[in-house]
């Protein structure tokens, strides 16, 4: 109680900071780092900087870029609206089959996107389980439209948001709900005014991850939506296609996607890189 030095950092024998280095780790660590960094350096070295304005200034490039930004944003909004409630159910309710539900919902995280695209076609295609009905009743055909791009991106990216928000929800003490109830707040009022504000940072982080994943989506998109310039040709699809006839354009477009990724990483730095 009378220990004046109580708030000084405690030191014990064995708690010294400097680690004992097994030097053999340095070699694979250096090779691994080079392996990860060199491709990015190569991209920067081979970028035709002089022609960059011409390569990126074309109207078709701007169309692809705008389409990518719009569809990724739309997919993220849908993922928030549908994904936050899913995250709440997974984090707050205990029921039979919860583990199974979580596995199914997060499956697109590990499913190869091309297979995801095939699955989307079988469900929402013209002859698909739901798609056939949509066509018959409403005359709506989803595949190979801009909406299909959004569907494909949402399918692949929403699990990132769900996982992130579910983790954040587990960090929100459920007793705040009880405190709100003792103050007369209904369940919906409590969710809206207590839970959601406390969840906001988790939703923001999840939304950024989701958006980044949606922006880079290629496999499911080209399978389910195709590559029609102006309607379904997003940036990654255009990068792939232009590699055939105009490699410089592919490099320039890749550089743009790299810059966007760096910007996202910088934005998430506070939350994810502060190890």
């Amino acid at each position: 109680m009378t220990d004046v030095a109580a708030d000084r950092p405690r030191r014990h024998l064995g708690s010294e900071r400097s680690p004992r280095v097994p030097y053999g780790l340095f070699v694979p660590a250096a090779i691994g780092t080079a392996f990860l960094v060199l491709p990015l350096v190569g991209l920067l070295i081979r970028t035709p900087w002089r022609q960059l304005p011409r390569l990126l200034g074309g109207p078709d490039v701007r169309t692809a870029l705008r389409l990518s930004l719009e569809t990724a944003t739309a997919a993220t909004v849908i993922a928030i609206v549908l994904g936050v409630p899913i995250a709440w159910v997974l984090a707050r309710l205990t029921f039979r089959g919860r583990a199974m539900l979580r596995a199914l919902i997060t499956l697109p995280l590990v499913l190869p996107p091309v297979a995801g695209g095939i699955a989307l076609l079988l469900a929402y295609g013209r002859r698909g389980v739901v798609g056939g009905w949509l066509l018959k009743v409403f005359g709506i055909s989803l595949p190979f439209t801009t909406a299909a791009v959004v569907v494909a991106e949402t399918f692949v990216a929403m699990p990132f948001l769900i996982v992130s928000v579910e983790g954040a929800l587990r960090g929100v003490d459920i007793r705040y709900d009880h405190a709100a109830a003792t103050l007369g707040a209904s369940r919906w009022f409590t969710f809206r005014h207590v839970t959601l504000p406390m969840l906001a940072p988790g939703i923001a982080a999840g939304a950024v991850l989701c958006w980044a994943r949606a922006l880079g989506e290629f496999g499911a998109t080209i399978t389910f939506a195709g590559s029609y310039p102006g309607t379904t040709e997003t940036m990654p699809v255009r990068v792939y296609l232009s590699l055939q006839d105009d490699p410089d354009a592919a490099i320039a477009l890749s550089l743009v996607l790299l810059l966007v990724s760096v910007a996202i990483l910088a934005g998430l730095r506070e939350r994810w890189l502060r190890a």
Partner: protein
Amino acid sequence: MSAPATDTRDSALDARLVVQRERWQLDIEVFVPAGGVLALLGPNGAGKTTALAALAGLEPAARGHVRVGPTLWDDHATGVRLATERRSLGVVFQDYLLFPTMTARENIAFGLLAKGWDKHEAGRVADSWLARVGLSDRAQRRPAHLSGGQAQRVALARALAGAPDLLLLDEPLAALDAGTRMSVRSDLRSHLSEFTGATVLVTHDPLDALILADQVAVIEDGRLVQTGTPHEITRKPRTRYVAQLVGLNLLAGHADGTHVSLQEGGELQVAESHHSDVFVVARPTSVTVHRATPHGSSRNVWSGVINNVERHGDLVRLAVTGPPDMVVDITPDAMADLQLAAGESVWLSVKATDLTVYLASADSEA
């Protein structure tokens, strides 16, 4: 008893709480008049917080009822069970649970907004509560930027802003350091005396119970073991736990005149005459320790072995095995003079006039 300023409403609490757990059951009855403060005092795990949760409707009761004034909140017989948000409640949680995303002012206004109040009206009430608890200059602070004492006052204001019929306090001072606790305790006391509804306070600290409450109910293992005013509890404890809480030696025995044969063995001379089962209470400071057989005026002398020595405030507390067993407080000087240590044999003495004796059966008391 701190009489309420205006007792215009009928919000007495009348409850029987039965909560069933796997290997444990809470079963207590409580009654608190409007304006009254009941302290549930007991060791950790006795069921105090469970009792509060049952009153608040956060914990399903197996049986029993909760009535506040004319309103039935819970009744097992008729199946009435009011949802927590529909009970006229205020709760101060042990760790306050202030909403971290809201300012102090928004926290206080929250309950009113939840009940559909107009934003300006709710803000006005929140401001007046901030002034009442002396935190007007902290209105825009988030809980993370409030000290422990300030957070406690915001939690109290938030609980009281909706003018509830029943106020529940769960260890309201436990999270505070000793220095802050003193001042917050006296503030809390004055706020409670102004509150016109019923208050139930849970604590494991007898000092909180004695200062804040006008009735104390001691819970052990889910049952009430003693109820009474703070005065009764401190003067005449009825279980060893209560005696320990208030720092007294409690011995059960049978009185034959002024001679008491103790249940655990040994006997004592007391000043007051009874012919019945009695409790005898000895203050740790009125027992004297000797190395050799004492030749003083004390009528009660016996030998024992010291089995524990620890500091107790400015004194040294010895646990001596008798019979009868006795906790004795002596000064560090006396400790050094007598050269005492655990495992040594000593003589104890206490004057008959320093022993309090009272009947063991509660109902035969005046």
